[in-house]
């Protein structure tokens, strides 16, 4: 170990971690390229490049308009949306896992998914337009977490983290009951399939406008995470230890929960509920680059984005029909996760 390495605390393990840090961007790149070419309509690499080039420069490509539509209106928006949704879920998961000091926490622990679901299901139930359904999902997610947070801060004198989690469980159950009620009352021929499809998550009907509409919320949520990336490490300590080190834990937790909730709510508002990404991807990222949030955040973003783009590519190619994403992410994510646990070498990393 050289003097410089000793100073920055990077030894043999640090170098290995740095090497493993190359994995997420490389995987991401491969998956995005594969996803752009995956699908029922074959597009050659040169046509792909030509379409993108012509759109960016505004010059006509001279290609068949079908090719242009497939590339520009279908595949690129889906890849972009997959990146945004997957990256958001994974980043939010990484934040929540740190805040709750538990590597098995997923972004919906505080009820954001349940709230978003109720919002969307309510929108479908009242036959609102798509944009209204998305807005209700987004608002529902935010309101649910705000409610959990209010209840959590009203209970004093106990471990604030535990109170938050329990409040999340209780309010999540309450929202679940409301969703079930709406499902029972919904028209079984038109509304119920739409509700079921939404609850399973999909990028099938996503448009370029959808992808861009969630971008501000995603970036707004990401900003505090990037800015507070080092403080986030201290938030994983016990409450009192962190406060004794000079941290205003209450304020920081509120800010980080708000950021993670904003990202998650934005993501699920266009994609529906997609489980497992936010739980498994930060976990894998931590195994690759370690727990330091400054490295964990970018790794989670890339792995999450790449994973969802990849799964979405499978969703539109493996079967005659579009397989809902929520099913695929669980079918792939859960066994992989079990394998990670069983191989157990890395413990709770």
């Amino acid at each position, binding site marked *: 170990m050289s003097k410089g390495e000793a100073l*920055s*605390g990077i030894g043999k393990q640090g170098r290995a971690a740095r090497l493993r840090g190359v994995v997420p961007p490389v995987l991401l790149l491969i998956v995005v390229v594969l996803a752009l070419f995956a699908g029922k309509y074959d597009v050659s690499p040169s046509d792909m490049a030509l379409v993108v080039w012509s759109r960016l420069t505004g010059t006509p490509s001279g290609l068949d308009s079908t090719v242009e539509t497939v590339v520009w209106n279908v595949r690129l928006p889906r890849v972009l949306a997959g990146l945004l949704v997957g990256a958001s879920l994974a980043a939010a998961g990484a934040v929540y896992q740190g805040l709750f000091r538990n590597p098995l926490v997923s972004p919906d622990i505080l009820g954001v998914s349940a709230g978003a679901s109720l919002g969307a299901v309510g929108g479908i139930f009242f036959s609102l337009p798509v944009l209204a359904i998305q807005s209700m999902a987004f608002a529902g997610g935010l309101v649910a977490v705000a409610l959990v947070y209010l209840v959590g801060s009203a209970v004093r004198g106990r471990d604030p983290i535990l109170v938050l989690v329990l409040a999340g469980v209780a309010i999540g159950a309450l929202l679940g009951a409301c969703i079930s009620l709406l499902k029972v009352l919904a028209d079984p021929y038109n509304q119920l399939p739409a509700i079921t499809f939404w609850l399973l998550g999909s990028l099938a009907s996503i448009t370029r406008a959808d992808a861009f509409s969630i971008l501000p919320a995603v970036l707004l949520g990401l900003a505090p995470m990037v800015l507070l990336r080092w403080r986030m*490490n201290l938030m994983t300590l016990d409450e009192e230890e962190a406060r004794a080190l000079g941290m205003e834990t209450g304020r920081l937790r509120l800010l980080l929960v708000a950021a993670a909730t904003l990202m998650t709510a934005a993501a699920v508002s266009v994609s529906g509920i997609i489980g497992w990404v936010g739980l498994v991807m930060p976990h894998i990222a931590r195994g690759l680059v370690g727990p330091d949030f*400054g490295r964990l955040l970018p790794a989670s973003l890339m792995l999450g984005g790449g994973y969802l783009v990849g799964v979405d590519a499978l969703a539109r190619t493996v079967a005659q029909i579009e397989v809902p994403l929520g099913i695929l992410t669980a079918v792939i994510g859960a066994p992989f996760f079990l394998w990670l646990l069983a191989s157990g070498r890395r413990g709770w990393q």
Partner: protein
Amino acid sequence: MMMTARDLAFGYRGTLVGEGVTLAVEAARVLCLMGPNGCGKTTLFRTLLGLLPPLAGRLELHGRPVMEFSRSEFARHVAYVPQAGSSYFPFSVTEVVTMARASRIGAFATPSAHDREIAQGALERLGLQHLASRPFTEISGGERQMTLIARALAQEAELVVMDEPTASLDFGNQAKVLDCINELRGSGLAIVLSTHDPGHAFACADSVALMKRGRIICEGTPQAAVTPETLRNLYGVEIAVEFMRGAGRNICAPALGRFRKE
């Protein structure tokens, strides 16, 4: 006088744990707090650390009420060494020690080269360089305790509060920690610590406070405050306090079986 408590009452919202506590903490002195389990030591420590508001009385740091300090301002004066330290994620020892710099850098900042040097310096001072890149979750209990002391050093505080720093350590590590406490006192730090071994008072303390049911029942130098009589009052058992030549100080041990006087 660095920190003073006058007629302090402490506890949780609506629950009084202890009262009438008057203490003074000075630079280059070690104050040792002892008492049976559940006597309120931990709650008192939380109050001294500004983590719990005093219920009554005065608690001042450099003449200013403790609750008036912001968390980061307070952390620049007072460092805390918890019993084991929380470690849910495998941060390296260096990363753990560098966390001490939180109170000295901006909210959005990351530690500078200067901060890392200070963390490295703290590790070197305690002879822990070899652990620098090891995960905190994988080192031994003694190494963890020393790492947390190094973190308190990197915090550059004047007062260090240690919650049972020798708890669950083997004999060798206990000696290391006690030596370390003496060395820190020598460098001018004020130290408040709790312990379950009354003998440790003779090993490192300048003054001792005995705590029973939330009140200080006896305070003074180790020689004056740690006697068979005060210890019997404190713990309810017969305890011998005798000078041990090989160790050069008094040692305490409970009398068992036929050595018990009753």
